[in-house]
């Protein structure tokens, strides 16, 4: 069974900035001042694509992530969600 997150709509938190780096990107949360590293360019693409797609699966497809790797990427996205780097769509601006 695939992860339910694949069907959910997410977006980058409003207080997070992405800085491109040779290996991917560095994500900085201006609210909680956490620094996170996105170690794969495809993950950066996915995170940037989130807000333009109805669900996470759409963003993964748009970023060119093969479906066999979706579970691994969802795990990475869950890590980003735990650090408040990404949020469920419609809640990007909430303080937290």
């Amino acid at each position: 069974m695939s992860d339910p997150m694949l069907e959910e709509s997410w977006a980058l938190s409003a207080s997070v900035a992405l800085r491109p780096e040779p290996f991917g990107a560095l994500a900085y949360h201006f609210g909680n001042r956490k620094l996170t590293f996105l170690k794969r360019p495809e993950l950066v693409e996915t995170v940037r694509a989130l807000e333009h797609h109805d669900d996470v699966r759409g963003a993964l497809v748009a970023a060119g992530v093969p479906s066999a790797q979706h579970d691994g990427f969802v795990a990475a996205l869950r890590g980003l969600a735990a650090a408040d780097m990404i949020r469920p769509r419609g809640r990007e601006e909430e303080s937290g």
Partner: protein
Amino acid sequence: MTIAAQRPAGVARPEGGSLVQQFEHGLDAPICLTWELTYACNLECAHCLSSSGRRDPRELSTEQCKAVIDELQRMQVFYVNIGGGEPTIRPDFWELLEYAVDHQVGVKFSTNGVRITPERARFLASTDYVDVQISLDGATAEVNDYVRGPGSYATALRALQNLADAGFGDAKISVVCTRENIGQLDEFKALADRYGATLRLTRLRPSGRGADMWDELHPLPEQQRQLYDWLLAHGENVLTGDSFFHLAAFGEALPGLNLCGAGRVVCLIDPVGDVYACPFAIHDQFHAGNVLADGGFQKVWQTSALFTELRAPQTGGACSSCAFFDSCRGGCMAAKFFTGLPLDGPDPECVQGYGEQTLAQMTLAGERVVPAPSQDHSKTTPTRNQPVMLTLGPTRSAPPVSACAESPLAGWEPTL
């Protein structure tokens, strides 16, 4: 947006791999940028890493500082560690702090607390993106004032109290670990807890005036072990940056960055705009360029010959055959340089003892040359804030006895 259009062709960066491997090849902008705003200071700490005291007349102007902040914003340097000298005694300090925060450059500043009045503390509590680090090198006045000067403990604690009273959450207490204070780690933690603050421990480096104090102040081998054990037990709630990666050779790696970040993820901008590989390396040898003379900070960070070299794979030299090389990576570049050790040799505080061994051999062979400092902004005449590094020796209750003493009790000292 691509930040770096053209960079010198270095060694090819591995795809994937660990973050540490990626860091070794450098980033497009630093993660941990220290910016010393002034060499002026009200204190004269014996171990000052930047030999601060007097203001440099070439110090960047307010407008030049703002231009640097603009550039940091463009490079997406999300926060900067501001220090000195004592940064808060620059008249434009609060203006620059607000300017940085308004331009998405968060500020963490180090201070001895002299200007953290109740009013300033309330202002700081009202800002986002500002962190305050109060320097304290002893958990008691006796230990702290010995190296930082009389009254400096009281100043630091008053600042912490003002911050706590103003509701400023999570101030940092920044401690340089020395021979005198390693026995006080639990007391430092208690002090931090008392003020709702976080403890930050850093390594003493033989940089600046620290070079003169090194032999007296650097932790003894058994204290290194004590520090390591303490960090293993309490390290999760204590900040250390990349200070103690040389201790990883004791066994398990410590929390924090286990890598020398110099020129890769770390660097320093000094008060006149000179860019150095790390805050502990203010010396011509580690000078990458100047933000005014060399086309701005971004150009220096991304294209300077020194930083390109630091991002190339390092040879371990004498250390590469050591079984612990993978954990300690040869230790701290600045610590080696300022004690006269070769850069590809062991760290002076190598926990396997190779540093002391090499230093002893070099001294014996007359090969040890401690580099002369490139700059010194120390005050030229002593002031009342200067630490007096004298302690009382064993006391005598009576003058020495001469051979002609007639008293039957001559030379007898009552013991209790």
